[in-house]
């Protein structure tokens, strides 16, 4: 019994150490490329699997070892992998702050030389699509997925029933809210446990009030630029104005977007509008095709007297940027795989799945995609989500303070001041 136990423990220790060795052994093999992403949803995973199959066929002997990981778990997993200096060869991010941290740690391969070498490939993309993966003039990723602005989705049926029209400005929006409230319908569905959801209102308000320059100036610490500036305080005030008007369905700060809490409010007709990324339409179509027919959207209303152009968008031009880590034995080969994952066939397949990759000359036949594409072609600026653009620490402060604004536990001035204090410490 006892020797058996020792042997068993010994075996366990040995196998544990073998486990530690295994990934290293794999990295030795130049013909294997590890690739991590968040495409766990079946249709999405299939798009990637198809392009990987094409790549493997064109490059016999090379194997792409893929892992599709759930969104939130993925962020932790990626962070641990980079912390342990064993990142996957190919990986996707949302660009912006977190990717910049990985770049700063020297573990991400600069893609500019590869992109310059293959002009025919590179020139297909809209230059603005590289904005959130460009740091100090160097490009570190390639957009692989959809272009998504945040818009205001609404229930056409409810609007028609009460004779409402999509509001063009803030005053009209307040009237819409009043009519909906009078009829026992919550104006907005908001699932703000996740915090980035409420942040969309704040970003749009700042943009409509002062244009994208206010945020730019605050981030770049330009003279006069401050997160405590008037636009940021005013945005907080307007959010609290909406909260006090009961514009959000009950429980908004505790509802979880990931389990569809806000969409349930829309489906049941208990709420009429939701500010959300354009991907929401794709999800609704999959979840509730019947309701999908009642769903429409309008751009975030203008604010009378605001300096921001009302065609401006908050959102992302391209998403799920693929990058290459320095753990790759053969970055050139990995770049080839990356090219296949974002080639014309992949872009076309995504178009059919209602996804707009930031590539030039796309002509979607789908009326919904066409309208989204139009929004982008008209927009004079696209503001990336604050929590992605800012360094992670600051992004969290932003989301926490905005949630507190929604909870009425911070005054607009105090929230803006907290953000500014954090920015002073973090941005130099």
């Amino acid at each position, binding site marked *: 019994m*006892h020797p058996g*136990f*020792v042997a068993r*423990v*010994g075996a366990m*220790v040995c196998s544990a150490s073998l486990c530690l060795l295994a990934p290293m052994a794999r990295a030795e093999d130049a013909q294997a490329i590890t690739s991590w992403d968040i495409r766990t949803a079946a249709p999405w995973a299939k798009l990637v699997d198809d392009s990987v199959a094409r790549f493997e066929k064109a490059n016999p002997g090379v194997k792409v070892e893929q892992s599709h990981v759930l969104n939130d778990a993925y*962020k*932790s997993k990626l*962070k641990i992998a*980079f*912390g342990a200096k064993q990142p996957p060869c190919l990986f996707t991010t949302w660009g912006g702050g*977190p990717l910049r*941290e*990985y770049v*700063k*740690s*020297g*573990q991400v391969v600069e893609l500019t030389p590869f992109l310059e070498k293959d002009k025919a490939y590179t020139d297909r993309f809209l230059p603005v699509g590289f904005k959130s993966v460009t740091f100090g003039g160097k490009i570190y990723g390639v957009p692989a997925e959809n272009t998504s602005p945040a818009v205001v989705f609404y229930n056409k049926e409810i609007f028609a029933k009460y004779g409402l029209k999509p509001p063009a400005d803030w005053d009209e929006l307040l009237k819409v809210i009043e009519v909906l409230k009078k009829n026992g319908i919550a104006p907005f569905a908001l699932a*703000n*446990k996740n*915090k980035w959801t409420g942040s969309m209102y704040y970003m749009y308000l700042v943009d409509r009030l002062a244009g994208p320059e206010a945020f730019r100036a605050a981030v770049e610490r330009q003279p006069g630029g401050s997160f405590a500036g008037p636009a940021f305080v005013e945005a907080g005030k307007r959010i609290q104005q909406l909260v006090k008007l009961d514009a959000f*369905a*009950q*429980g*908004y*700060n*505790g*509802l*979880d977007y990931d*389990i569809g*809490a806000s969409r*349930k*409010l829309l489906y*049941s007709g*208990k709420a009429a509008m939701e500010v959300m990324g354009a991907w929401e339409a794709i999800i609704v179509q999959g979840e509730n095709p019947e309701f999908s027919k009642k769903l429409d959207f309008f751009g975030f209303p203008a604010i009378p007297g605001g300096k921001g152009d009302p065609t401006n968008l908050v959102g992302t031009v391209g998403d799920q940027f693929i990058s290459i880590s320095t753990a790759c034995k053969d970055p050139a080969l990995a770049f080839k795989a990356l090219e296949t994952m974002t080639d014309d066939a992949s872009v076309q397949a995504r178009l059919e799945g209602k996804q707009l990759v930031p590539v030039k000359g796309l002509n979607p036949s789908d009326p919904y995609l066409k309208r989204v594409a139009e929004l982008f072609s008209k927009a004079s600026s696209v503001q990336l989500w604050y929590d992605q653009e800012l*360094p*992670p*620490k600051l*992004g*969290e*402060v932003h989301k*926490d303070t905005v*949630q*507190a604004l929604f*909870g009425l*536990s911070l005054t607009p001035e105090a929230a803006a001041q907290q953000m500014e204090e954090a920015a002073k410490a973090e941005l130099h």
Partner: protein
Amino acid sequence: MAETGSPRRLVSPRPPPVPSAWRAALTRWLAPTVFLAPAVALLLVFLVYPLLSSFQLSTLDWNGLGEGGKPVGLGNWLRLAHDEIFWRSLRNNFLLAGLSVTFQLPTSMVLAVVLDEAGRGSRFLKIAYFLPLLMSSVALGVIFKNVYDPTFGPINAFLEAIHLHGPDWLGDRRYALLSVIAVICWQNIPFYMLLFLAALAAFPREQGEAAFLDGATQSQIFWRIKLPHLRGTVRTAVLLSVIGSLRYFDLIFVMTGGGPESASELMSTYMYRTVFASFQLGYGSTIASAMFLVVTAVAAVALRLSKRFETEV
């Protein structure tokens, strides 16, 4: 092995004593060493080393990526001392511990005593009560997020039916923590119930019967005979429950993520957020180390106290 009358001994009448002492020591220590080595090695690698390195990391300003990080000495600890969210999460941890002991344990005790009295017929109930413990916390969290939903959840639908306006269970700072604690207790009650049931099974029936014949009421039997008999088990339960509460993570993480506005934050969820969402490995390690110190201190005091009770009785 050691032959006393060996010829060698005749050749050298004064053998060096060292080898035999060595051999004795060897035989005395060899077996324990061999058997303990794997466990000690595992503990060193997976417990002691991470513990020490987490204390070391707590002196750095580091995002966990790339080389090193900037040493800041006790800077992180000073920041912790003034960190409102940390103190709030510590308070929340103690609230969880307090409610676990005052609500969860008595309920488990009642269930255990009743089930024990009910005897055989209660087998089905025992299994039914045990079920929550078998469910994964994540699944449970998602279920209760729906139960607490202010618009669609059954609780508020019921309150609505009797013309009450149900509160916003998870989205209101005043209720979020208590709402989750209720679920935590519900999930863990079966565990303590089982613990008490096992202890009650060891209670000699004759004692109860004798007391009954002497005219003792059921409540006298419980308070005067059964409860003292269970003292050791109750002590264990309190200790487990307090320590478990101080390190608690899962349901809070799944149901509120520590929110809204950190109202339901625990030390562990705050640490997780600091490390994985805002990329502050150094400060996150400070929170983890502080958590370790708190848990160890509380456990030491609790053990001390329980020992004193033991001698006093």
